[in-house]
């Protein structure tokens, strides 16, 4: 029985030992140069992306920090609020309260426009406080 390639491992070894086709030198050089160019381009793009991300993070970090600092300063500088809601009416009421006009026609019109706000001989422009 003739030895077959499968039954004889030497056949495969022989196949591996035989001369094989190889890449032409110019094609080898071309592929190597293209690969290195692609690698440097990929590295440059990767660096640019990292740089862009860093700028984005820095910008937003600084922006938010500035917002919070401004808000804090405004809060510290703002006047204290009134102690209760009732007192605001007491404080603000006289400021906005206007005397009723002398003209009766106009007084009637205003009374119809602000039926809830014409108490005490004046009206309040419809403001609520």
């Amino acid at each position, binding site marked *: 029985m*003739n*030895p*077959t*390639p*499968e039954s*004889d491992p*030497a*056949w*495969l070894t*022989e*196949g*591996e*030992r*035989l*001369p*094989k*086709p*190889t*890449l*032409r030198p110019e*094609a*080898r050089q*071309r*592929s*190597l140069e*293209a*690969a*290195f160019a*692609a*690698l440097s*381009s*990929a*590295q440059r793009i*990767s660096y640019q992306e990292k740089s862009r991300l860093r700028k984005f993070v820095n910008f937003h970090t600084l922006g938010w920090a500035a917002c919070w600092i401004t808000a804090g300063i405004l809060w510290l500088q703002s006047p204290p609020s009134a102690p209760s809601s009732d007192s605001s009416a007491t404080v603000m009421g006289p400021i906005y309260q206007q005397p009723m006009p002398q003209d009766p026609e106009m007084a009637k019109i205003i009374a119809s426009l602000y039926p809830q706000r014409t108490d005490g001989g004046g009206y309040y422009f419809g403001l609520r406080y």
Partner: protein
Amino acid sequence: MQSLTALDLQRLHTAYADGVFRYFWTATGHVTDAEDLVQEFFVKLATHGRAILTAQIERAWIFTVARKLTLDWHRRHQRRPQCDASADPTDLILTTTEDPDAALLGNELLLALASLPPDQRVVAELRLWEGLSLREIAESQSIPLQTVASRLRYALDKLRSKLQHLYSEIS
């Protein structure tokens, strides 16, 4: 994740440029297309090849990527692999050897391989020239192990019948 360095790329090119060229030649049947695919392969490796640094079997990973590139090539050319009945061995450069018998055998093997159907040719090339195990071939080509064994058996039967006269002389 660690990225590919120039040294890695140089090492991979030295180790696999000829192997992937032979693979592309057996898969496409054309020397110039194979050379273009080698260039495309290493460009792809340089840009997206970080996974190779963590691959368990490096050469199986290499030929997996090569197979995907070959499929893309067939899609681009709207050609199925089966349409290329035989490969064209002209313009191929064999490694030089001082042994005239080895040179003759190498040339005969090349011609015999070129006449095989593409599926069997690829499996035979990976086994005979690249020395991949059947399991590595199955993994890299995404085909069952039994199919690899079957294709290799058919390929070797055909090679044996074509090279019987030379094989008898060397055995």
